[in-house]
């Protein structure tokens, strides 16, 4: 059921008015106010905005004894990722081969030539649902879409 804005305040006002008129006792008024307040947080939560997220956010909050406090706050438009993926189609195969060789040297067994552009686009589309939380004693990392 949808609640109209200001209904909780209206109910609270009515309870206080009934108390002032002597229609209810203080205990009854307290019970009623408690019941109204219990409903309030649910009503106060804004309806989640529908539609697709527009930004990928990376928030890092770390406190290292060597490098001190580190804060990173990056917001990347998802459109930018999609545009980058479309541009990645034009990377020449020989460049991908060289990138593969370098990745293999670093121990990363990924064949970039096998990754198709539509797969990358699907990956970017699937980022909408991504939420990654890493919470350690000194470090907090959050990756999410908004």
């Amino acid at each position, binding site marked *: 059921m949808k609640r109209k804005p200001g209904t909780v305040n209206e109910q609270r006002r009515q309870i206080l008015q009934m108390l002032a008129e002597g229609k209810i006792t203080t205990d009854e008024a307290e019970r009623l106010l408690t019941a109204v307040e219990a409903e309030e947080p649910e009503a106060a939560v804004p309806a989640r905005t529908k539609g697709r997220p527009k930004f990928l956010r990376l928030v890092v909050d770390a406190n290292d004894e060597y490098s001190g406090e580190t804060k990173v706050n990056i*917001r990347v438009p998802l459109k930018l990722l999609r545009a*980058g993926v479309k541009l990645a189609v034009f990377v020449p195969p020989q460049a991908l081969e060289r990138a593969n060789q370098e990745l293999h040297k670093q121990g990363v067994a990924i064949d970039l030539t096998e990754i198709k552009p539509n797969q990358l686009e699907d990956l970017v589309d699937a980022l909408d649902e991504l939420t990654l939380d890493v919470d350690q004693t000194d470090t907090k990392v959050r990756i999410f879409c908004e």
Partner: protein
Amino acid sequence: MIPQLVTARWRRKDGRYRRLFLPVVPIVLLLSPLLLLAVIGGIIACLMFDLPPFKTLAGVGRIFWALPGARFEIEQGRTAVLVSVR
């Protein structure tokens, strides 16, 4: 929408922040002769590396168009840098 304003902010050695606001459209207009040369250079580079020049330019343009909203903020120790595109 093309980017309108790029804001760069960094912390100086004395701890005070320095801000730089770059209005993109006037700067692009001011540098348009150089940009034209850069585009011609880009087309030549595309032809050298067997890339479709106009599709590649369109891709670069798409990235430029997608920039508004991007924000990079890094703060570590005494270093603090912010780059924001609106």
